[in-house]
């Protein structure tokens, strides 16, 4: 099944890979498919930047939420809060994109037009992947042996020092693999960036510049692309898949190597 999917994508990409210099996907100046220019570097960079912004915001806040649920929250709040996070996790990405487009874009537009931008895409993506970080970190913290906490308490270590210096390091491998999974989700996400990133093909020069990511590019141009153009869209799909797979494999490796995983 996986082999079939990869085979179909590779076959789709083949005309571009064979007839075009594959290095040209990086060296071509820009993306002008009608003139035979297929430089994907700007879009690849945009994809990676959006992902980095999202994870820089989501990782600390998400882990803090996990600590909140696991150790700080009173029992009654804890259950409701978990439900809220689960609700956020189930939020369809197209709804998040709609919210970003109708609520956040006008807000930023007043301050620095056009509003649709690299930063905004990162922020909305952050909201999307935050529950992933929180839920995986929470599972990691919960699976720690209780003796760890007991021993730390017996040594008279205060709670916040315990959390920061004992519990988080013990769960770090599982937390990092959760963060990697969230990064993979952010990189592969289409709808949110399609709706709020602005879709202008250019090298991102500032946080408030509109950009177009690889995923959004596929969604925008697949409908009318032909021949080499179509094949190069398949190439970008292939690049995305490989990037995501590498991250997933690293994540599962880190997790399986760890003692407390």
């Amino acid at each position, binding site marked *: 099944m996986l082999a079939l999917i990869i085979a179909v994508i590779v076959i789709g990409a083949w005309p571009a890979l064979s007839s075009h210099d594959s290095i040209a996907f990086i060296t071509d100046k820009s993306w002008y498919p009608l003139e035979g220019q297929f430089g994907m570097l700007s879009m690849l960079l945009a994809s990676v930047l959006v992902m980095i912004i999202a994870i820089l915001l989501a990782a600390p806040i998400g882990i803090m939420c996990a600590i909140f649920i696991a150790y700080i929250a009173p029992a009654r709040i804890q259950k409701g809060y978990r439900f809220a996070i*689960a609700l956020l996790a189930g939020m369809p990405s197209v709804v998040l994109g*709609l919210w970003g487009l109708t*609520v956040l874009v006008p807000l930023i537009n007043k301050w620095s037009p056009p509003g649709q931008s690299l930063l905004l895409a990162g922020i909305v993506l952050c909201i999307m992947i935050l529950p992933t970080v929180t839920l995986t970190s929470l599972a990691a913290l919960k699976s720690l042996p209780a003796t760890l906490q007991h021993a730390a308490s017996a040594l008279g270590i205060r709670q*916040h020092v315990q959390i920061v210096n004992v519990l988080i390091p013990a769960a770090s491998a599982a937390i990092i693999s959760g963060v990697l999974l969230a990064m993979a989700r952010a990189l*592969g996400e289409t709808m949110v960036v399609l709706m709020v990133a602005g879709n202008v093909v250019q090298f991102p020069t500032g946080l408030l510049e509109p950009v177009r990511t690889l995923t959004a590019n596929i969604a925008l141009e697949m409908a009318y692309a032909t021949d080499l153009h179509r094949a190069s869209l398949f190439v970008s799909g292939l690049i*995305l898949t490989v990037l995501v797979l590498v991250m997933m494999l690293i994540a599962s490796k880190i997790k399986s190597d760890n003692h407390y995983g």
Partner: protein
Amino acid sequence: MAERLFQAGIWCAALLVLMVLFWLVQGLLDQGLAKLSVDFLFSQPQNAGRDGGISSILVATLLILAVTLLVALPLGLASAVWLAEFTATHNFWARKVRLALDVMAGVPSIVFGLFGYAFFSLFLGMGFSILSGGLTLACMILPVFIRTCEIGLRSVNNSWRQGAAALGMPKIKAVWFILLPAALPAISAGLILGIGRATAETAALMFTSGYVDRMPGSVMDSGRALSVHIYDLSMNVTGGDAAAQASALILLMIIMVLNMLAYAITDLWLGRRVLNGFAN
């Protein structure tokens, strides 16, 4: 002092997330609620979706989901039974299949869309149709579904298998009459979560089931799913925001109900397993 500061920081982060969630829901309710009515659910979209309702969209969504289920359920169950009951845990092929499934679960949905477009729509000649959309979604949800079913089957108490074997039941009957019913809560929870994911999916459907918003006549017709409708209204139709938000509210409600069902079933099942543990 440091203790206080730490706690305050954590509370702030937690409240921030909660506020974002409320802001999100409020933003949708703001414009969407006025548009929402029984009429909205049961009338056809008019004027590119600005007016009218979403009846044909709902029908198309349900048809796509039906196709997805019809394909994913038998295939998923069969694979899970094979992985859990008919191969050793460390069998070479089983390990490879498991790895492939885990990897597939992470493939971006837009890539599934590309695959569905190239394979189902063009290569198998189904065109833009509900059938190819449903098949693409089935490919997308299968990995997670198979793994949940496998875990469900594995956690059935081993004495049940031994009991069935002692009574001389053929293995296939034991699976059908004892193990599958015992694992049913896990299977249905996995299935409901899968349906939730499929309902929320947009990117994989844009090139497979298409954009046509007429009432679909058969599964070979193109049909527009609810999520695609939201996308189209907000991006390509000026003045479609209110209708888009009303549709988003409907989609959100469907997904919330599905998720709650899944959680309720899992809770029930976990409770039962604890009881079983005591009984044995």
